[in-house]
């Protein structure tokens, strides 16, 4: 992170190297966000305008594009995504916190093996389990339901969030758990009244990360559900795009709608977001 003490370079006069760097970074910023700005601006144009001049602002803002996109089925996809995301986030956070608590606080045999077994899930790409999972979900009778997405998301989300939460719990002084034991507390009390409140920041990070993963997940959503009513936004947008190949502006309005929830979350919780996503990956 940047520090607030001004450095020798920025305090002294800005040399040509500084301006060269500044130019490069503004250019990179442009490359990063201009496509998004273009998306938003174009989504307000008429299709004719889009073909006319890709760079200009719309002559009149076509809010109707959004209405069309929304009515063309986006709303349904959003509802599915919200259900799948919320359910998987809650499950991942609760289960990972419980597992981490056991790994950090409780005494039992085979701790190292179990920890490795959980964390080992990090190296298994979902692609590899795809076909057997397809069969398993059919066998369980949950193919083409929300559960067909929620349960795999939770299973594949647990390794990373356990990794995160455990690393945080390890830093909580063990004396707190011992004090609770002396106070007559059982493990459930200690978990619920001591560790959960103290882990709130990391639980929030883990929840954010899982929310993003669930919201953005692709291959399972593509494979494990087929009804429009169960499709999440990522896959829904594919059908949506196929249906609207010719009506760019409405398609773009749909794209904008589909990122609004995650974008708003990001802008509101920016610090936790970047902090959470970067935690654990490197130290």
């Amino acid at each position: 992170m940047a520090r607030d003490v001004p450095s020798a370079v920025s305090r002294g006069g800005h040399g040509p190297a500084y301006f060269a760097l500044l130019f490069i970074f503004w250019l990179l910023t442009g490359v990063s966000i201009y496509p998004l700005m273009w998306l938003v601006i174009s989504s307000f144009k008429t299709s004719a305008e889009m073909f006319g001049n890709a760079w200009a602002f719309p002559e009149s803002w076509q809010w109707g594009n959004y209405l069309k996109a929304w009515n063309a089925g986006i709303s349904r996809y959003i509802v599915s995504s919200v259900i799948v995301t919320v359910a998987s986030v809650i499950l991942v956070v609760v289960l990972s916190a419980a597992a981490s608590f056991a790994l950090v606080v409780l005494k039992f045999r085979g701790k190292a093996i179990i920890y490795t077994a959980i964390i080992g899930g990090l190296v298994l790409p979902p692609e590899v389990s795809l076909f057997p999972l397809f069969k398993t979900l059919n066998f369980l009778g949950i193919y083409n339901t929300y559960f067909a997405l929620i349960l795999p998301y939770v299973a594949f989300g647990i390794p990373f969030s356990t990794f995160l939460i455990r690393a945080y719990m390890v830093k909580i002084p063990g004396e707190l758990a011992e004090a609770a034991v002396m106070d007559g507390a059982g493990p459930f009390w200690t978990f619920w009244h001591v560790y959960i409140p103290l882990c709130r920041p990391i639980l929030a990070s883990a929840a954010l990360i899982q929310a993003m993963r669930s919201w953005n997940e692709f291959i399972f959503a593509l494979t494990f559900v087929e009804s429009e009513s169960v499709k999440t936004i990522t896959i829904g947008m594919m059908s949506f795009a196929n249906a609207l190949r010719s009506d760019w502006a409405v398609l773009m309005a749909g794209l904008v709608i589909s990122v609004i929830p995650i974008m708003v979350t990001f802008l509101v919780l920016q610090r936790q977001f970047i902090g959470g996503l970067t935690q654990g990956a490197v130290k």
Partner: protein
Amino acid sequence: MSKLEMVSVSKTFGPVKAIEDISFSVEEREFVVLVGPSGCGKSTLLRLIAGLEDISAGDLLINGTRFNAVPPAQRGLAMVFQSYALYPHMTVAENMSVGLRIARVDKAVIASKVSEVAAILQLETLLDRLPRQLSGGQRQRVAIGRAIIRDPEIFLFDEPLSNLDAALRLQMRLEIAKLHKKLDATIIYVTHDQVEAMTLADKIVVLNEGRIEQIGTPLGLYTAPRNIFVASFLGSPKMNLLPGRVTGSDSGTARIDLDIGASTPIDVKAERLSDGDRVTVGIRPESIAVGAEGSDAFLPGVVSVVEQLGGQTIVYVDIEGGSPITVIMEGLADITTGTAVKLGLPGSALHVFDDGGEAVNRIG
């Protein structure tokens, strides 16, 4: 019957023996300090008593009943942790009442107990604060309050003062001593600080490498250490230790030649020694007389460092052929670096240890 008794207790962690065959007892209202260098097993011992670790062998008796398998919370003990272990997200009042709340004690009873204990510890105005809003000393008092509120049979303290700065440590030490009197409490207290041990304890248990070196009153240990370890662990600055050899022993009196001054024989009563035995002679810094006549032995030396502490002066004297000797002089001594001095070692203040480091005798 003793309040608490440890009988041949051992604790092993895998192949490592942390505690070996330890026995001692704690009487009603006694203040017992477990002291020793870090890694000596004193904290493990306390955790065995608390029930945070399982005893590998031996018995823990409380009021005569075997308590080895009793869960920690049901042992009637309360523990004050080194880091205080206050729950950071709970207020002072909540922290103190956790145990009662878990035990589902009536709310009104809890409230009255909290205010009662808060009054004892002068925490009344802090009850709604969070631990992070408290000073170190206040946190310490809350941790003690959490113990008091449970009205335990025995208080366990695990190095409770080690996180405080020097001034506060002195103050809290006094408060703990007062509290002991006020509550008529039975206390087992772990520390590595021999000053805490000396000032607080009714009884000291000196531990080293998982074994008991000596048990006794502070003064008893100070004046009659059973071995070199205890002798040099208690007292600050440390006891001076001078290697020597027995040259003549008859009728219960041994003559010892110190390696650093062959011409200064010392008479001690010592039936167990025979000629030629290697021994170590110990003398506390305050027992050495600088330039005084009439001592049983004299050592010539040169003052190398003088530390004026105000109330006393610590003088380090280089001795030819040996390690420097520490001397404490009362008041502001008029002595400067480089001065040649003669150190008098009064025979009555000498401790003699045999080759194995065991005390041979005390000269009365």
